[in-house]
């Protein structure tokens, strides 16, 4: 029964796409569909979360059934290895038949692939039929990835926002500001930590502190100027210095990543953990990975937020299939399913208010779970700094806390 409704909804979406677009584009999309039929798409995507893997498998089944496109999820530990793969292929002149057809990507990795000419031609993402539903207006990060314009070389998949998790059985009122957080860490030695940069989440914490403490935020949206680096990051390091000796393991070892922190929160080693997925806590509770008393909080003044994307390498020979899958991932059906915390809990990139009634209803029916904040409670989104700051930040951090000298 539900399968029938789903099929109907899909058919409707397809019809809508046909009815609204310009005729030239429709023709070309039909060409894409025809070309995609029978192709096999190797989708290289981080594979560390069983819920996400199951979602990808579901989406793969759908496009195989409806469009004859076979999607194989290549589970990746670190997206940078995929960038390496495409780079290696380019360096021996393998300009077609590359091993990678689609990558789950954003930020530094995207900037690097773009700068080195490793991505498929500009513009394709904005020709996808479901692009019309993307919330370009209220979610500017769907077109600007860590300050770098996407130029249609990657298609948005989901939204991320830094949120903190705590166990309400141990803490009554979570810290509301960075200063409160530092006070908490000092008063509860060994119970706060952040993952070690260059882990993505560790670097994100540095950036959150940097963005919140910097005197002139406009510096961060531009390419790094080494002349102002020390002065810009001084308040950030002053803050981290106050934390350092009060951190978990006295700052001599750090959690590996956000998942490790979640585990430490569950075991009571840590009091606070964080995530880029606002529904992470709800999902982990449903999954038995966190105690039911865990809740989510954010800091006053906002937290970092960004968008994650899928991109096609320049030498993929299955670009039609990859585009078709990227489009399917953008469909209201796939996006609403993705936002369900029981399934994944990843926020949509679409403008839900502007969707046709039947599609809008899919989102309205979602139960976001006991530990998920409402969009209003999530607070303002702080922009990511330019990617060029990342390696400088990581280097400076390593020099200060990572050499065993302290």
């Amino acid at each position, binding site marked *: 029964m539900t399968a029938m409704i789903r099929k109907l909804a899909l058919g409707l979406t397809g019809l809508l796409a046909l009815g609204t677009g310009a005729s030239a584009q429709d023709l070309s999309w039909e060409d894409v569909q025809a070309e995609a039929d029978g192709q096999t798409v190797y989708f290289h995507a981080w594979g*560390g979360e069983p819920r996400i893997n199951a979602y990808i498998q579901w989406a793969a089944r759908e496009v195989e059934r409806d469009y004859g496109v076979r999607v194989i999820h290549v589970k990746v530990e670190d997206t940078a290895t995929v960038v390496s793969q495409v780079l290696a292929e380019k360096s021996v002149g393998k300009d077609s038949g590359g091993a990678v057809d689609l990558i789950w990507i954003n930020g530094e990795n995207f900037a690097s692939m773009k700068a080195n000419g490793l991505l498929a031609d500009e513009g394709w993402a904005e020709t996808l039929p479901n692009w019309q539903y993307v919330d370009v207006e209220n979610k500017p990060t769907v077109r600007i990835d860590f300050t770098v314009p996407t130029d249609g070389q990657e298609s948005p998949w989901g939204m991320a926002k830094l949120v903190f998790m705590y166990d309400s059985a141990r803490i009554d009122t979570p810290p509301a500001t960075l200063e409160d957080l530092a006070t908490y860490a000092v008063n509860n030695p060994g119970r706060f930590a952040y993952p070690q940069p260059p882990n993505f989440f560790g670097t994100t914490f540095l950036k959150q502190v940097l963005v919140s403490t910097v005197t002139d935020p406009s510096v961060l949206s531009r390419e790094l100027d080494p002349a102002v680096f020390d002065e810009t990051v001084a308040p950030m390091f002053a803050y981290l210095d106050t934390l350092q000796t009060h951190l978990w393991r006295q700052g001599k070892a750090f959690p590996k990543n956000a998942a490790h922190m979640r585990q430490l929160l569950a075991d009571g080693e840590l009091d606070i953990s964080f995530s880029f997925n606002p529904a992470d806590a709800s999902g982990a509770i449903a999954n038995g990975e966190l*105690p039911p008393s865990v809740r989510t909080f954010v800091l006053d003044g906002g937290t970092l937020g960004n968008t994650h994307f899928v991109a096609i390498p320049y030498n993929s020979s299955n670009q039609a299939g990859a585009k078709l899958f990227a489009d399917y991932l953008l469909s209201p059906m796939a996006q609403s399913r993705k936002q369900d915390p029981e399934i994944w809990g990843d926020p949509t990139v679409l403008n839900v208010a502007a969707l046709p009634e039947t599609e809008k209803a899919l989102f309205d029916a979602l139960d976001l779970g006991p530990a998920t904040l409402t969009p209003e409670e999530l607070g303002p989104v702080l922009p990511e700094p330019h990617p060029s700051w990342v390696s400088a930040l990581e280097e400076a951090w390593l020099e200060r806390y990572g050499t065993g000298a302290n």
Partner: protein
Amino acid sequence: MKLPGVSAAVLTVLLAGPVATGLAATVLPAFGYLPVLGSSSFTAAPFTDLLQEPGFAASLFLSFSTGLGATLVSLALVIWFTASWYRTRTFQRVTRFLSPILSVPHAAAAIGISFLIAPSGFLVRLVSPWATGWDRPPDVLILNDPMGLAMTGGLIAKEVPFLFLMMLAALNRPYLGDYMKAGESLGYGKTAAFLHLILPQLYPLLRLPILAVLAYATSVVDVALLLGPTTPAPLAPRLVVWMNDPDLTKRLMASAGALVQIALTGLAILTYLLIELVVRKRHKAFLESGRRNRSDRFVRVSGLTLMSGLITVTTASLLLLVIWSMAKSWWFPAALPQRWDLGLIGSALSMNQAALGYTISLGLAAAFISTVLTLWHLEASSRDPKTRLLSFLVFLPLVLPQIGFLFGLKMLFLAIGWDGTAFAVLLAHLVFVLPYAILALTDPYTRLDPRYEKAAIALGKSRLSVFLNIKAPLLLKPILTTFAVALAVSVGQYLPTLMIGAGRVVTITTESVALASGGNRQITALFALLQLLVPLAGFLVAMTLPRLLFRKRIAMSGAR
């Protein structure tokens, strides 16, 4: 006869070809040559960048000290125990325990050990909160300590079984009992008799395995990531980080780092050889002193304690993996899971058939090819088994850090269009599997009494018939053991499979690393177990098959 030339040539191409081309493709970027990134002039800049990396010297020191420390302690433990318990019932029992442990991949062992000894791990849970008063885990640094003690411990737990197996193979020779008797009749204690009379005969056979362990331990990545220090980390895991940095120019520095890693491993080997020299000198002086060391009670008790401690830790770690693979929720301080979930085992098996298929087929193919090639070479060159060049070549993939030449090897396969094919992955596996096969089989083969062969040939049998009817049955146990070791080495390959497989060829090992990056302990444990399933099956077959086949021939069934 041309045959020895052919087999040596095949082995040379399989071993040296990939390593040499891989190395070349690493040396060029190390000196600034990587045209795809727009750098096509030679410079020493990658090396100066490397020297300026924060904590670089500390990383070098850590790689050196943990690697050498783990090797020396493992070796000492194996010699200590063997010397004091050789030719006893206890020795037989320990043998039975340690051999299967060899099939546990390094990463799986490290994961299990961290479940055991972490502040929120099983040991603390057993005594909390009733005895310790801890209702939350204590904030003490056990794993990832800056000195690398946890990492050294993890390496020892894995290297002791390997060196012990090599020791067993070396012990498998005639007349050792007579030497012991001679020693004891001269008034030496058992331990002393072993150390003075038997060990010097065995040591030449142990040397290559020891150096292989040393090379591995100074350049290990997975154990370092799981148990090693991070502020800073040893060199090898940092190389992987640089190699994978989104800033692609870091690859130049990573290549320079790979060369430094090779030098560092070389230095560790030199240091070891120096220690060996000193010990030899000391030993001579000790012999000349005439001390008999008749009472070795303390040595024996402590040797057994250490060895059984090691077996207990490893077994407990594996049991924890089994429990975790069925645990949905298991939070501190619960000593057993709060919620169980058996469903994941079935779904993990059904969802990973492709990976399991590749693991098994690559493993069997690599083990079969390397065992057959080794036998062919030994048979073809039986008159002169020790070709210098070949023993150097065998050594090469064992002592060179994998990262040092894998990137280059990948470029080679890409250039000829083999990247991402199962065949290319198999070739890459063979580079690492073949040396172990040669290591495991050469000694038992050359030690086979040549009179059997001579008698059969004198009776008019062909060489093939001699091999099939006489040598193969006599050598069945070492051949099967070689096959099992080769299978285990192939299954354990992570970096070669990841890099050459390009995501098209995936194994349980690469899948488990990707899945473990999410920190879900149930999945991590389950895949660690899946990883050891295939090698364990291999070892079980190698242990039981000779017994079944030769039930009626006591001397050949392995029971003694």
